[in-house]
Structure formats: structure tokens, C-alpha cells
């Protein structure tokens, strides 16, 4: 019982950490390279613990991120819901991909996410973003194997599922 509660807290802690990392700024030069942390963490959990992550969790996390970002309520909720839906749909296959294939799949998901974001922003009346806009998904995908292994390792050490 206690172990279950611990694993729930660990789950929540990682998501809060993802939101915080989203808020922490990088130096102006590195700013385009900043990955979309909530998506990466949510992807990990939807692959590893799909009983916990559903569309509802993705939507809620997105709303929380929108509240923090303060741009447009529902923007990240939409993106994360779509992302988690695709990830859950292909979960059984994604889980048994070798790491490099999984990384490519994550890259595709993140690029899809950026496209969604661009569409939303253009509809909201913003100018098209510059080319450096598209760097972030690649950085996210490059970080994916490390993040995956790190989170897996931590989970093993904490002996939570």
C-alpha cells in the first residue's frame, strides 16, 4: 500500500519537475534548443505506466502548463492530449522498439507537436516563427534515450512500478 502511494508521489513529482524545467530559462543563445519537457516526461509515463496516464492526465497537465505560461488556455492541453493519444495507441509497439527506433518515433511525435503548436499560434494571429523554431524537437529526441534510461534506473532503485 505504502509502496503504491510512494509511486504515485514519484509520478506527480516528475510531472511537477517537468513543469518547473519548462519555466527555467536558458541563456538567450541556447533558448531555441530548449526541449519541451512536459511532453518528454509524459511520453515516458505513457509508455511505462499506461494505467496511470490517460487522456485526462495529459489534459490536466496541459492546463496546468497553460496556467503557468499564461498564453492561451487550452493550447498545451490540446497538444499533450494528442501526443499521449498517439503514444498510447502505439504503446505496445513503441515499448519493444530498440532504442534508436524509439528515439525516431519520439522525434516524429515531437515534430507533430510543434506543427500543432504552429497551427494554433497562426490561428491566434501570430507571425510565423523563424527557422530556429524547429530545432527543439530534435534536441528533445536526442535527450530521449538518456531521460528514458535515467527515469527507468531511478524507478528500479526506488523499487516502484
Amino acid at each position, binding site marked *: 500500500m505504502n509502496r503504491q502511494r510512494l509511486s504515485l508521489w514519484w509520478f506527480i513529482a516528475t510531472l511537477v519537475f517537468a*513543469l518547473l524545467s519548462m519555466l*527555467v530559462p536558458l541563456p538567450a543563445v541556447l533558448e531555441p534548443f*530548449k526541449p519541451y519537457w512536459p511532453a518528454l516526461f509524459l511520453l515516458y509515463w505513457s509508455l511505462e505506466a499506461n494505467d496511470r496516464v490517460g487522456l485526462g492526465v495529459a489534459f490536466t497537465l496541459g492546463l496546468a502548463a497553460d496556467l503557468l505560461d*499564461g498564453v492561451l*488556455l487550452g493550447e498545451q492541453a*490540446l497538444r499533450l492530449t494528442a501526443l499521449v493519444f498517439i503514444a498510447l495507441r502505439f504503446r505496445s509497439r513503441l515499448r519493444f522498439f530498440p532504442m534508436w527506433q524509439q528515439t525516431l518515433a519520439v522525434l516524429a511525435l515531437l515534430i507533430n507537436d510543434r506543427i500543432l503548436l504552429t497551427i494554433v499560434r497562426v490561428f491566434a494571429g501570430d507571425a510565423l516563427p523563424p527557422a530556429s523554431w524547429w530545432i527543439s524537437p530534435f534536441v528533445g529526441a536526442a535527450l530521449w534515450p538518456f531521460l528514458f534510461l535515467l527515469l527507468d534506473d531511478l524507478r528500479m532503485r526506488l523499487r516502484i512500478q
Partner: protein
Amino acid sequence: MGQDSSPLFAGSVAGTLRLIGYLALAMVLMVLDHRNGWMWRLRYGAAVAVEPLYRLAGLPVEGMRTLSVAFADRQRLTEQNQRLREDLLLANAKLNRMATVAEQNERLKELLDTQHSLELNVQLARVVGVDLGAYRRRLLINVGARDGVRPGQPVIDAHGVMGQIVETLPTTSVAMLITDPNNALPVTIERTGLRTIAYGSREGDRLVLPTIPMAADVKAGDRLLTSGLGGRFPPGFPVGRITQVAPATTGMFLEARAQPSADIDRSEDVLLLHEQAEPAGPPAPVPPMGPPSDLAPAGARSTAAPARPVKGGVR
């Protein structure tokens, strides 16, 4: 894969329906928010949870600043100190000279019986190092509605205009920088007095002036000042310096690019301008007078005393 319920290929209809439901909900939220902008009211309500997170997320930047001071070598600090002293001396000398001019100005204004004042009512604020979304040129500041900050207030630093407050939370507020693509600022070119509008650019680090008449006399190096039209910014604050002028792609206007004079990326402390002295204009409308209140029917008595926000700050 014992408890794994998701099938290998086809997904369930229920899952798709739920996706559509959530997506529709998100879109409704976005449209409502875009139209009405009530997200900020929600955010204001959620400030209890939101603001500590901002403070937490701002800690790394704060730590970096502290570390950079702690580990900066003595030499550099001494140099910096020396430079600041010189700056202060120079500024004070200029101020002393200005004092006589201001006094003269005051006397002349008394003669003219106007009420415009050059006095600045400012409030010092600190920038909280938080990233508010990619390619959104916005800044989080550590003073908020409780300190008397209101949307629309100009934000400046020592070198020029930085932006304006767009939204406030109880103890923090968000400023939109002048380099944000959604920002437009009425400016005047100092040398010629030409009035035009400076927009933020897509790249987000400079200003664009796309509607300068073809015949206008504009050169690289011209200084831009706020024109004071529009009533948001007081006139005469430095905005930037023109770096290049070229015919616009439409061929109907000249398009100039300018470098903001404020240290937009590097400022740690900023100044919030409070409202200026009353502008000359028609007097405020007289509140409607009815019969004496003891004759009014019960329940219609109201004490309508508009609460004025407290003006804090340095004068």
C-alpha cells in the same frame, strides 16, 4: 504483458471518442480565452499555486546571479564599482544642471498655467528569471497588483523603454517587451520629428518601422523617442537607434530596422512608471445627484466611493 489492455493494432472506438471530446474541449477553451481573455482571471485565482512555482523556477537564475557576484574576481568588481561611481558623478552633474532648467520650466509653466509635469513617479522592480513560452517576448516582474501595479504601465530601464505591463497577479506581473511581434509603439524620430510606429520583429530582438513615407528623411543612426501619442507612454523616452533603412517589399514605404536602446536581454532591475500628473482635459463628470438619501427608498442607498489604488514607490 499480462495487464496490458491496449491491443496491438486497432484502437478502441471509445478511446477515439474521448480524444475527440478532449480536443473539442481544448479548442472551446482556446476560442473562449482568445475572445474574452478570461484566462487571467483564472490565473489570478490560481495565483496561490502559480506564484510559488514562479519563485521556485526563478531560483536557478537567482542562484546564477549570486554565484557570479560571489566568484567574480575583485579586480572586476573594483572596475565595475569605479565605473558606476563615474556614471553617478556624471549623472549627478547633469542633474544639477537640469535642476535649474526644471526650475525655470516650472516658473514658465506657472505663467502659462498648465499642469504638465516632468516629474517621474517610478517604482523599482526586479526581473524574475522565468521562461514564459518560446518566442514570447515577455518578462516576469516581482511586483504585482498588491503593490499598485496595473496593466498598461510602461516599463523602462536606465537606457530606454522596455515594454509595458500586460497582466498582473497579486505579487508578480507580466510585461510585454517592445520587441514582441504583437507590440506597437508610437515613436518619433528625434532628428526630424517624424512620427511613425515601431513594431516588434519576428526574430524578436529588434524593432521594425514598416510605414515610413518614401520621401521622409531617415538615416541609419537616427534616435527614436516615444512620441506620447496613444497615451500609454510619456513622450521623450529613448526607444532605440535605427540601424538600416531600405524600401519595403511593397515598394510603397521605407522600412527601417532599429536596435532597442534598453538592455532587453540583460536587465535585472527595471523601473515601472506610474501615471503622470493629470493631463489637461475636460473635468471629470459630476456624479449624478438625486434627492437627499434619506428620501430615497430603502435599499437604494449606496456609498459609491471609488477606491483609488495606493500609489507606492519612489518619487
